């Protein structure tokens, strides 16, 4: 894949989220449309991935796991990038909305990441001969996921909403350090995991299916973010009797 592919995906995800919040008329229907289109795209992905795509040159049919494993991991990384963006935005200008969005993206990122790791483990058994290996890519991914599980645990254990928002924003920034390590681990170290596929290393049919899978998961990511955000906002309303638009701003002495 070209180096700009993840950035393009991130831009599309960001565009969808910003459109949802900035254009009130889209709030009622855009997530529903995204979910419906995602379901249709998922049905087609099953056909494309299991039947239409050619077998991989060395892994044969086992290589078909690529079309669900990679999109899941990419959605995880996009969700965590949105999360750290919200965390930075919260620290710059305190807002319950960005805090709620950070919470939702972290949970969705963990869900996609855990799914991606589980599928990777299933893929590793017939190709590497083991379910798990203490490989740089796998270790860094596990550390990244655990750091965000800790982030979510911290949020659920902390009662004070302001403290929760501020400290979890700091934890998010710290946790995000692991993401570039995960991405570049296969290049920096001698990893059992293959390096990122390129346009030259993927057959055109395989490339189409992988992108189809990625776009499919992007639809689900957006719909999940919208619904999870509503849950987070509802909990904020319950925690704060009259939820203000923004937490208290510290007044400089």
């Amino acid at each position, binding site marked *: 894949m070209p180096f700009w592919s993840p950035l393009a995906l991130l831009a599309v995800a960001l565009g969808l989220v910003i459109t949802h919040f900035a254009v009130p008329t889209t709030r009622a229907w855009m997530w529903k449309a995204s979910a419906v289109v995602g379901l249709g795209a998922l049905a087609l992905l099953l056909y494309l991935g299991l039947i239409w795509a050619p077998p991989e040159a060395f892994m044969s*049919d086992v290589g078909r*796991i690529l079309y*669900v494993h990679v999109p*899941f991991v990419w959605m995880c990384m996009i969700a965590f990038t949105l999360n750290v963006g919200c965390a930075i935005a919260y620290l710059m200008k305190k807002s319950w909305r960005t805090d709620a969005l950070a919470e939702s993206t972290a949970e969705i990122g963990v869900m996609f990441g855990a799914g991606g790791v589980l599928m990777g483990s299933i893929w590793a058994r*017939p190709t590497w001969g083991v379910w798990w290996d203490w490989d740089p890519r796998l270790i860094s991914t596990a550390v990244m996921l655990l750091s965000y599980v800790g982030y979510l645990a911290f949020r659920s254990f902390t009662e004070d909403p302001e403290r929760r928002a501020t400290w979890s924003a700091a934890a998010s920034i710290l946790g995000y350090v692991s993401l570039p390590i995960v991405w570049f681990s296969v290049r920096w170290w001698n990893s059992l995991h293959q390096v990122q596929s390129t346009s030259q290393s993927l057959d055109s049919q395989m490339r189409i299916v992988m992108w189809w899978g990625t776009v499919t998961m992007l639809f689900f990511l957006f719909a999940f973010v919208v619904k999870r955000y509503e849950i987070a*906002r509802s909990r904020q309303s319950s925690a704060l009797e009259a939820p203000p638009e923004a937490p208290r701003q510290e007044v400089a002495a």
Partner: protein
Amino acid sequence: MKPFLLSRPVLLLSLWAARALAEEAPAPVHPAGIEKAVPSGVIEGGWGYVYAAYTVALAGLVFYALSLWTRRPGAQPPPPGDTP
């Protein structure tokens, strides 16, 4: 006196023998030239792993969507003593 092994005829003979042995050795299967120690060939079968991975993907999406549905605002009734 020159060591015997470094004399020119023996050195040339050794190089010729090494080259002949290398030419007789089977070429690596992988076009990129992976070392012979790396197993080569194509994995046969494995559909069970493919179905398992796709099931994990579908189950992840379905169960997370269900969890969002059950946690949606207003889904849980207020506790019995909470009414005014």
